[in-house]
């Protein structure tokens, strides 16, 4: 075995520790002997939360990311509380206080930044020592000093109205101080906000008791032996007992400069984060890349990944190309999100804006060529996750600009991930808490898929997947690893749905095993099988080669598996209409097979629960009713109200229409299950507005068709697709919609997710107005599937496989 290379990291802040984590995650422990130097005498902590420590909402120990034990556990030697004094490049050594010397093969500088002190008089005592009452705000020790001094003081002033300054001001309020903020320029948070937004924020802050002074340039800090006040360049004065200077940061690059490395505003690095010495790398706030110096955490994480990929050899082509940074923050309880430019800079830049000053809400987006180039959200930042992503990935934004600013008719946003308690259950099916996800991320799983697989979060009903992803992203600090399989139709075949469909058609693949053989190198991913089967049925209808091992157990035995391995049987009952004779027959079956539970379903049918697998064929024969398909990702049922036959309000024959719908769509496979309903009048007794497809009779002999509704794990009112005159038109247009959904939705994507993803306008254009000229083809494809319908319960007499209904086989000698 070759001996390990020596890797030394100077700096144990968020950048230094993260890069080491990334290196370890790529197997770096085998390659490197890692030593770290940190000036602060403890492990690594979350500097972003410093203001929470100052304001008392967090204890210092709450914000630690890696305690000292973490370093030992991972074989990392940490010199905590040791300041590096020199880098000796020729000797490849780092020299630190107390005579400590470490040799290096590779060196990473992650020294972060220092507070910027604007030139002013009286900053220090005449002998150059610190003036009591003057502080900076950069680390835990600063917090401790401010806390100790603030006690019993009357007025605290923060110089600097940027993000850090406002955070410091929030902290000072905790000490019952009268808090003032001094802003040199016209508006606070000039990096993130435009003038109107800054004015609204200023007002909000003043409502919270903070006095904001704009256009005040500090000339001097007054007081002979301690702070007594400030003097400004316009001659005015403000008395105070305590000053926190938070006027910005500068790269901490002195060590690199003294070592002779190229330093401008920061340590100059290339796309591999390498300095002009090929053995020395740098990351974080101390770095200058393509002329940019970053003061936020997201770029640092991107840099850490690239650097780790290089050093470990995991990806020699990894390159850092700079960061587009969208920030989300909370200033004194006011939520702010900001990205890109704050004012339009080019002709043709489109500005979309909304102001409700009274509520402190301000939203402004700048769109160039259909893409987001800047945005400010103040007060209401529910759209921030979507907008940040659109900005960072440069994806086109919807034509309907209003929907960029507001959720119209969509479910309200989940509670903010950050404020969610650790013990809160995120996935209610599998009982996975926010804390469990955080733990999994901490163990090095950094993609949504890997965390979901390891914790099974989001693997139940799937309704929480978005939230789970948000929690994972948050736990990863905003940047999850791109999981290439996220865009695949199924994880086991590396193709998107359109690519997969094209390949299946081109190669004429009609069975799941042939897809694995031709498109996945023969590797059969069991979790991908049902999704492939569903797609192949949609594409080939009667030509599909049904390999039962590709189907979930429910579709092998045409019943729904229960927790004890028994099955539930639901016969077809179109429109929820039954008869005395049918009910008698069902009752006889229940008696004969000792059915433990009979239950009316939400879809207006009767469920016989707890049947043994080997009894299924006889149960079906005795029932003499077709399968109701109450299992599987298919058309399930169409609920209806009484309609015109008896109801005195009925406007349309909802019962008759429901029966026609069932006769047409019975057994239809789809990416997700399909629950439909018809309502005879707008009272909607059958809840047609919250179904995958719902038809509602309205005055004037018309039917309104709603699509994309849901009232299960997720609740959503369907979108109005169109209004039509006849039952035939309802069947045709809802069928065309279903076929479009079958061909374009991701596997397991219900219509409630598919419709808003594609957009009802687009769907209406395709389905109703035939904008793509595919309506006829969609109708034909659907007809082919309709024609391929077979009642699967006929397999009672013609089993599809050996021992299809054999639960427990005995030994055959």
């Amino acid at each position, binding site marked *: 075995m070759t001996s390990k290379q020596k890797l030394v990291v100077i700096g144990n802040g968020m950048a230094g520790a993260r890069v080491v984590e990334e290196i370890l995650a790529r197997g770096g422990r085998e390659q490197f002997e890692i030593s770290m130097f940190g000036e602060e005498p403890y492990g690594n902590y979350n500097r972003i939360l410093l203001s929470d420590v100052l304001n008392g909402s967090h204890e210092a120990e709450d914000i630690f990311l890696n305690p000292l034990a973490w370093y030992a556990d991972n074989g990392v030697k940490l010199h905590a509380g040791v300041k590096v004094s020199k880098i000796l490049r020729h000797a490849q050594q780092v020299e630190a206080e107390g005579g400590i010397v470490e040799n290096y093969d590779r060196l990473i500088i992650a020294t972060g930044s220092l507070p910027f002190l604007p030139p002013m008089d009286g900053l220090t005592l005449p002998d150059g020592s610190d003036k009591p009452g003057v502080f900076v705000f950069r680390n835990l020790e600063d917090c401790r000093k401010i806390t100790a001094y603030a006690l019993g003081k009357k007025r605290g002033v923060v110089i600097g109205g940027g993000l850090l300054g406002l955070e410091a001001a929030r902290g000072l309020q905790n000490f019952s101080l009268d808090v003032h903020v001094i802003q040199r320029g016209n508006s606070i948070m000039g990096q993130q906000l435009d003038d109107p937004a800054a004015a609204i924020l200023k007002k909000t802050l003043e409502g919270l008791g903070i006095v904001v002074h704009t256009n005040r340039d500090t000339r001097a800090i007054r007081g002979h032996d301690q702070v007594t006040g400030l003097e400004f360049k316009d001659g005015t004065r403000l008395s105070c007992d305590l000053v926190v200077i938070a006027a910005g940061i500068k790269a901490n690059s002195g060590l690199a400069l003294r070592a002779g490395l190229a330093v401008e505003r920061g340590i100059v690095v290339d796309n591999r984060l390498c300095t002009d010495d090929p053995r020395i790398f740098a990351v974080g706030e101390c770095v200058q890349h393509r002329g940019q110096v970053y003061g936020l955490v997201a770029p640092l994480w991107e840099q850490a990944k690239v650097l780790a990929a290089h050093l470990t050899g995991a990806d020699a082509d990894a390159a850092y190309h700079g960061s587009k940074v969208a920030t989300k923050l909370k200033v004194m309880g006011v939520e702010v999100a900001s990205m890109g430019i704050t004012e339009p800079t080019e002709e043709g830049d489109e500005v979309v804006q909304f102001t409700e000053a009274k509520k402190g809400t301000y939203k402004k987006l700048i769109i160039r060529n259909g893409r987001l180039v800047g945005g400010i959200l103040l007060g209401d930042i529910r759209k921030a996750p979507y907008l940040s992503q659109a900005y960072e990935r440069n994806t086109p934004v919807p034509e309907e600009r209003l929907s960029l600013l507001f959720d119209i008719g969509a479910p309200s946003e989940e509670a903010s991930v950050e404020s969610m308690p650790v013990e809160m259950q995120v996935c209610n099916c599998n009982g996975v808490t926010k804390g469990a996800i955080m733990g999994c991320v901490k163990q090095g799983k950094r993609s949504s898929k890997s965390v979901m697989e390891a914790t099974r979060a989001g693997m139940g009903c799937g309704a929480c997947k978005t939230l789970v992803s948000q929690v994972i992203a948050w736990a990863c600090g905003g940047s999850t690893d791109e999981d290439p399989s996220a865009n695949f139709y199924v994880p086991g075949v590396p193709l998107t749905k359109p690519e997969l469909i094209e390949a299946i058609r081109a190669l004429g693949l009609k069975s799941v095993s042939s897809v694995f053989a031709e498109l996945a190198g023969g590797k059969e991913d069991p979790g991908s*099988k049902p999704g492939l089967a569903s797609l192949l049925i949609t594409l080939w209808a009667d030509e599909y080669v049904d390999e039962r091992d590709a189907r979930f157990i429910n579709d092998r035995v045409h019943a729904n598996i229960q*927790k*004890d391995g028994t099955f539930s049987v639901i016969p077809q009952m179109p429109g929820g209409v039954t008869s005395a004779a049918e009910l008698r027959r069902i009752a006889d079956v229940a008696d004969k097979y000792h059915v433990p539970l009979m239950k009316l379903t939400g879809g207006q049918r009767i469920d016989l629960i707890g049947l043994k697998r080997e009894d299924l064929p006889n149960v079906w024969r005795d029932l003499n009713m077709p399968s109701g398909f109450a299992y599987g990702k298919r058309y399930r049922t169409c609920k209806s109200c009484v309609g015109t036959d008896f109801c005195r309000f009925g406007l349309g024959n909802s019962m008759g229409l429901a029966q026609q719908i069932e006769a047409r769509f019975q057994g239809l496979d789809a990416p997700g299950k399909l629950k439909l309903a018809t309502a005879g009048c707008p009272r909607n007794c059958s809840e047609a507005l919250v179904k995958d497809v719902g038809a509602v009779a309205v005055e004037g002999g018309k039917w309104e068709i709603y699509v994309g509704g849901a009232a299960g794990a997720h609740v959503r009112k369907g979108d109005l697709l169109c209004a039509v005159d006849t039952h035939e038109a309802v069947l045709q247009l809802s069928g065309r919609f279903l076929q479009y959904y079958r061909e374009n939705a991701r596997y397991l994507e219900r219509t409630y997710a598919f419709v808003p993803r594609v957009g009802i306008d687009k769907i209406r254009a395709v389905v109703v107005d035939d904008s793509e000229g595919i309506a006829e083809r969609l109708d034909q494809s659907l007809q082919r599937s309709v024609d391929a319908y077979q009642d699967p319960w006929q397999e009672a007499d013609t089993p599809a496989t050996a021992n299809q209904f054999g639960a427990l086989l005995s*030994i055959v000698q």
Partner: protein
Amino acid sequence: MEVTLGPITAIPRGEGRSFQIGSAQIAVFRARDGGVFATQAECPHRRGPLADGLLGSGTLICPLHSLKFDLSTGQAVNGDCALKTYPARLSETGQIVIDLQEAP
């Protein structure tokens, strides 16, 4: 102790079935590539019938809550539990033979 369970054709390709062997129940799987595996019949998580799971490339997914197991080791891929596995093979005449290691 080796036990012959009967012809492999009792199990459809790519599926599994449970066998009653004395007082024990054992799930046997017939992979599409010809491999044969045998494990305990019930999922250690919530007693799901493993023979009804989805099978592929040496991995099994329990039908109840999607726990995933490596059939060669029995170890859960997404959980803390493990399955008891039994050496299994096909005889020259296509009979399933499993080694119970101890009498059932």
